[in-house]
């Protein structure tokens, strides 16, 4: 019953009714916590780790504040508040989004635990700096909204441009420090020692100095946050409205499947949580590849890149499927079979993870990896996407629906994906030559063909 999408609408409605900020926070925190474990595992340099996490939290907070607030306003969530006799609405909204942004702290917890085992007091101060980073990012996001306001245009292009701008800026800004720090960390360390009083280098200064600086920064930031939050949110509640000229209808090229994939990609692009979910793997993996590449190079980097990307497949597939939300009811009205729906999800998630995989192999190639690695860059992540879809959508109904994706079920899936990837990469690990890569490639093709066949025969299996 639980896994039957025939009742998924009721389940979903029940979830919506049960929704609260606490649960949403815990969920987001857990995802970031998982990423934090990966970061803690792969970055041996503590100073580097401290600086990159601080920068990441600061940028994520700007991103989450600006994008989430704009999206929420766009969806008209604040409209009922305007009619209510409630004082200090701006403050409440601002705090709500600050709480939302604090969930990214999850990424800092595993590395912090590791650090605390060595230097407890210094880690406590560092953690306070991380909380400060989120507040700082939130404040800057609010400053951005207070200065530039928020124009609600009739056309989606206006919001798309804003979103795209923020997306690219955050991606570049998040990558750059990591690339710089990992590449020329010695120089950065020297620079940070000289300008220890400038944030984010403050996190690397001596413990007492760091704490004093934190207090000074907080004295400035907290009143500033209170002031700009009020102005920023009030500008959001009363946005400028722009009417645009007449629109024209243009038909996209492509068939039914292309339309479904395009829809999924647009939903991810326009949904902050989806977008964050998709860019996070890049932010986490790229520095790993660079660090590992500069340390060991070659085969290890390839294995690392492909296995990590492949393991992100269930999460990406889950994000895309969950992204349908209640709007899946619209698809239920259309003549779309369960296998069409599954295939569209597999292809969308494969598009994302395979793109990531190819980019990473390209980076690995710069660190001396063999070009043969490109052979397995696509089939392996595709296999984990397909496997995840077959596992998650294994419910006894032919209807399109959102399957059960509870934490337990996702954990089992992740475990099975680890085994699958390990088995497929075993020849590459063992031989590390043409034969190894070719064997992994052919094995992957056979499994892919088998899984696609299984997906295509799903209708028959169920009936």
């Amino acid at each position: 019953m639980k896994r039957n999408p025939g009742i998924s609408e009721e389940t979903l409605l029940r979830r919506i009714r049960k929704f609260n900020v606490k649960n949403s926070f815990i969920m987001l925190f857990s995802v970031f916590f998982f990423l934090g474990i990966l970061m803690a595992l792969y970055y041996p340099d503590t100073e580097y780790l401290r600086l990159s996490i601080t920068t990441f939290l600061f940028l994520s907070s700007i991103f989450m504040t600006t994008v989430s607030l704009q999206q929420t306003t766009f969806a008209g969530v604040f409209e009922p508040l305007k009619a209510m006799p409630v004082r200090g609405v701006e403050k409440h909204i601002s705090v709500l989004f600050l709480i939302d942004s604090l969930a990214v702290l999850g990424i800092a917890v595993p590395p912090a635990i590791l650090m605390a085992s060595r230097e407890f007091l210094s880690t406590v101060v560092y953690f306070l700096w991380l909380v400060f980073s989120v507040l700082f990012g939130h404040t800057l996001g609010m400053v951005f909204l207070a200065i530039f306001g928020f124009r609600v245009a009739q056309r989606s292009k206006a919001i798309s441009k804003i979103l795209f701008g923020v997306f690219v800026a955050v991606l570049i800004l998040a990558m750059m420090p990591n690339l710089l720090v990992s590449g020329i960390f010695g120089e950065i360390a020297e620079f940070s020692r000289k300008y220890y009083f400038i944030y984010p280098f403050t996190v690397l200064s001596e413990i007492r100095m760091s704490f004093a600086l934190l207090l000074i920064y907080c004295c400035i930031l907290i009143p500033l946050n209170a002031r700009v939050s009020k102005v920023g949110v009030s500008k959001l509640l009363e946005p400028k409205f722009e009417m645009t000229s007449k629109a024209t209808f243009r038909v996209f090229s492509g068939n039914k499947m292309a339309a479904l994939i395009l829809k999924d990609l647009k939903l991810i692009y326009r949904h902050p949580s989806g977008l964050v979910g998709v860019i996070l793997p890049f932010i986490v993996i790229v520095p790993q590849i660079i660090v590992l590449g500069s340390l060991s190079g070659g085969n290890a980097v390839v294995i690392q890149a492909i296995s990590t990307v492949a393991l992100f497949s269930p999460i990406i597939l889950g994000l895309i499927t969950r992204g349908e939300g209640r709007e899946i009811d619209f698809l239920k009205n259309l003549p779309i079979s369960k296998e069409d729906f599954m295939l569209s999800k597999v292809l969308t998630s494969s598009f994302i993870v395979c793109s990531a995989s190819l980019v990473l192999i390209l980076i690995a190639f710069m660190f001396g990896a063999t070009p043969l690695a490109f052979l397995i860059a696509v089939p392996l992540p595709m296999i984990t996407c397909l496997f995840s879809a077959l596992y998650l959508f294994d419910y006894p109904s032919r209807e399109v629906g959102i399957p059960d994706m509870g934490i337990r079920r996702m954990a089992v899936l992740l475990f099975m994906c680890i085994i699958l990837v390990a088995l497929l990469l075993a020849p590459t690990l063992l031989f590390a030559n043409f034969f190894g890569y070719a064997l992994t490639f052919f094995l992957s093709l056979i499994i892919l063909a088998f899984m696609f066949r299984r997906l295509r025969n799903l209708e028959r299996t169920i009936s």
Partner: protein
Amino acid sequence: MIELVNVKKSFGNSEVLKGISLRVNGEIYGILGPNGSGKTTLMKIVAGIMKPSAGKVFVEGVDVESDPIRVKQIVGYVPETPILYESLTVSELLNLVGKVRGLNKEELEEKVANFARAFEIEDYLDSLIATLSFGNRQKVAIISALLHNPSVLILDEVMNGLDVRSAKILRELLFRFRREGKSILFSTHIMPFAERLCDRVGVIYEGKIVAEGKVGDLKDFAKVKDLEDVFLKLTRGEDISEILSALI
């Protein structure tokens, strides 16, 4: 043609539909009933979105339960509350519908242009659905249901939120569809609409059809002046004036 044979639907212990049988063939059939009487459940079952607990539903001879995809190809369904992709623009949504329904480029372009003009949503084609008013969303839902020229229409409270002009256009369209022999199942709370639009009506109450027939016949049967009174008499059988005097 739509045919329902002894359709039942239960949610847990609560039986919402208690054996509904009806046939709609090349006509506009109005389903009338108070809130919670099972109208929307019935509509969803006919559209192939919900499965009946018992009984059979056929749309143009196709068994809804055994081939829901074929039924969805035939049917155009407008739900009571249009749930559309909020983060897509109107153009993107109609493109999606057109592609899924297998319309070619020229056909889709022409249909969207004509419907957008008729329902005055040309200026909103590039707008995100999230920014549209309820009425405009309803128009988008109607266009989505009509794009593929369905032979069977299932319209659940379709007039909700529509402005006078759009309501008139839709009414005229439905008359034209009826002349073309399409079968239309139509639910509404607005009795004057039902009176003007429907060839036959069925009054559903507590999961059962308590009366069915032409509007005139029902009025004669209930010995009242208009359909509103027929409805009240059949569903509640109580005097509204007594309730009103207790309120004021």
